[in-house]
C-alpha cells in the first residue's frame, strides 16, 4: 500500500507500532497461560492485572470492574444478554435507541423472539436521543437501558450523563456502547452515570479481537462464555495476553494524547468539510454539527450512490466508508440515517470520512481536490441528477 490516505478510522485503526512492540514478547517469549502457577504463568497473570489497572485508570473505574473480552461485539452481547438473563425475575423490558450498532440491535431482536420487550427511543434529525423520552419509556419491568455514547456512522455524541441520571433515578441499570468514544472524548464512568460500558481495542490503535466490559461491582450478569475460572468466573477462556497488553497500552497512550489530537483532527475535519462544501453543490452534513466526535464527518451527496463513490475514491488511494451497509448483501440503507429522518435515496448516497492520527493537511487537501471530480463524473452518469 504505497501512500494510502486512510479515512475510515471508525471502521478500524492501524495498531500503533509501539503497541505492537509491547505485545510482541507475550507471544513467544513470555507465553505463559495466566491460569498456571509457575513463573511463566505468574508473569502473564501479573501483566494482565497491570493491564486491567491501566484500563480502569483511564475509565476512572476499579480494576475489579474491568473484564476482558474478544471485542466490542462480545462486550455488547454480554451486557445485553447477560443482564436480560440475570434480571428476568424483575422484568423483561429493555430500552435502547434506534441508532445503535448492530451488535446492540441484533442481541435485542434475539431477546424479543424469546419473550422480552424492547422500546426503541427515536432520535432527532441530528441523531440525538432525548433523555426525557428515555424517562417516559421506563416501566416497572424495565431491567436495562442501553444507549450508545457516540454513533459510529455520524459521530453524534449522546447525552449519556443525563440519560444515566434518568436511569439511576429510576433504579434501572444503564449500559453504554462506548466503542467509538473511548480515547476520543473523555469517558469516565462516574461522570457518565453508567453501570456497564463496552469498548474495543482496534478502535483506538490497539489490536483487533480484544475488548473490555466495565461492570460496576453491584451489577449482576449471567456469563456469555461459560467455562474455566478466568475473569472472576464471569468470562471463561484462556486470556489473550498479548491482546490485553496491547489494549492497555493503546488506551493509555491514546487517552493521553486525546485532547491535542482531538483539536488537530477536528480542525482537519472542518477544513475538509468546508473545502468540499465550497466545491460540490448539493451535499449536506449528516449528524450533529457540534456535538460530534472530533474526527467524524458524514454527508450525503445528492444523485449518486455510496459504493460508487467509495470505489472511485479507492481508485484514488483514499479509503472511506458509505452510510449504507451495502456489504451485508442487501441494499438496505443505513438504519442510522433513516432513523434521523433522512430519505432512503439520500442515505444511499452518504459517505463517512473518519480521520485519525496519520491524516495530514496534505491528505485533506488532496481529498478536497479529488472528490469534486468524482462526484461530477458520477452525477453525469446518474439518471436522477440533472441540476
Amino acid at each position, binding site marked *: 500500500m504505497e501512500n494510502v490516505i486512510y479515512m475510515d478510522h471508525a471502521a478500524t485503526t492501524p495498531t500503533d507500532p509501539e503497541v505492537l512492540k509491547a505485545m510482541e514478547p507475550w507471544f513467544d517469549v513470555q507465553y505463559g497461560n495466566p491460569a498456571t502457577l509457575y513463573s511463566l504463568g505468574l508473569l502473564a497473570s501479573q501483566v494482565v492485572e497491570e493491564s486491567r489497572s491501566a484500563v480502569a485508570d483511564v475509565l476512572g473505574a476499579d480494576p475489579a470492574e474491568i473484564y476482558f473480552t474478544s471485542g466490542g461485539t462480545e462486550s455488547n452481547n454480554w451486557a445485553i444478554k447477560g443482564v436480560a438473563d440475570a434480571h428476568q425475575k424483575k422484568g423483561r423490558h429493555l430500552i435502547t435507541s434506534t441508532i445503535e450498532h448492530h451488535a446492540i440491535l441484533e442481541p435485542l431482536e434475539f431477546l424479543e423472539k424469546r419473550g422480552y420487550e424492547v422500546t426503541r427511543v427515536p432520535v432527532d434529525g441530528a441523531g440525538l436521543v432525548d433523555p426525557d423520552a428515555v424517562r417516559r419509556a421506563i416501566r416497572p419491568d424495565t431491567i436495562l437501558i442501553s444507549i450508545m455514547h457516540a454513533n459510529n456512522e455520524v459521530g453524534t455524541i449522546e447525552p449519556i450523563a443525563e440519560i444515566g441520571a434518568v436511569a439511576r433515578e429510576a433504579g434501572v441499570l444503564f449500559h453504554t456502547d462506548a466503542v467509538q468514544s473511548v480515547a476520543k472524548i473523555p469517558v469516565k464512568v462516574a461522570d457518565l452515570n453508567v453501570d456497564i460500558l463496552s469498548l474495543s481495542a482496534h478502535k483506538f490503535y490497539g489490536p483487533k479481537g480484544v475488548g473490555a466490559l466495565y461492570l460496576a461491582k453491584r451489577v449482576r450478569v449471567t456469563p456469555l462464555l461459560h467455562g474455566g475460572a478466568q475473569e472472576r468466573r464471569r468470562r471463561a477462556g484462556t486470556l489473550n495476553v498479548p491482546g490485553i497488553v496491547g489494549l492497555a497500552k493503546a488506551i493509555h497512550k491514546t487517552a493521553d494524547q486525546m485532547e491535542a489530537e482531538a483539536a488537530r483532527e477536528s480542525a482537519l475535519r472542518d477544513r475538509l468539510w468546508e473545502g468540499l462544501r465550497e466545491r460540490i453543490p448539493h451535499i449536506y452534513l449528516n449528524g450533529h454539527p457540534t456535538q460530534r466526535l472530533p474526527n467524524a464527518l458524514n454527508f450525503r451527496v445528492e444523485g449518486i450512490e455510496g*459504493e460508487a463513490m467509495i470505489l472511485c475514491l479507492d481508485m484514488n488511494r483514499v479509503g472511506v466508508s458509505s452510510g449504507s451497509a451495502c*456489504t*451485508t448483501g442487501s*441494499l438496505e*440503507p443505513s438504519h442510522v440515517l433513516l432513523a434521523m429522518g433522512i*430519505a432512503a435515496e439520500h442515505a444511499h448516497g452518504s459517505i463517512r470520512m473518519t480521520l485519525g492520527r496519520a491524516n495530514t493537511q496534505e491528505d485533506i487537501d488532496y481529498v478536497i481536490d479529488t472528490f469534486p471530480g468524482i462526484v461530477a463524473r458520477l452525477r453525469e452518469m446518474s*439518471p436522477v441528477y440533472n441540476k
Partner: protein
Amino acid sequence: MYSELVMEHFRNPRNMGVIEEADGVGEVGNPTCGDMMRITIKVKDDVLEDVKFQTLGCGAAVATSSMVTEMAKGKTLDEALEISNKGVAESLGGLPPNKMHCSNLAADGLHAAIEDYLEKQTAKA
C-alpha cells in the same frame, strides 16, 4: 471483491449517456433502493444502432449497465431480447454473490427500452 473486468467497466463505462430523441427509453429500479438505470436506444431496420445508459448504483450496477450496452449494440431486437441478466453477469466473469441482484437491472432495462420502442411503433401504426 469485484473481478478485474467488472472494475474495468466501472472505471471506463462504455456507452454512458443519453441518446437525444431516442427511439425507446427504459427505466428500471428506483432511487429509494439505491439502484436505478435508464437505457435509451436508437433503432434502425430492427437493429440496435445505438444504446446508452445512465445508472445510479453500486459498482456492479454500473458495470452490468456498461456491459449490456456493449452486448446489445448492433444486435437485432429479437437477439437483444434474448440477453438475460444471467448472461450479462457471466460476460463480466461473474459477480460476488451478494451483488447478483444488481445484475438484475441491466437486461431488464434494455428490454424495457425495446418494449417502449415496440409500443411506440404499434401506436404509430
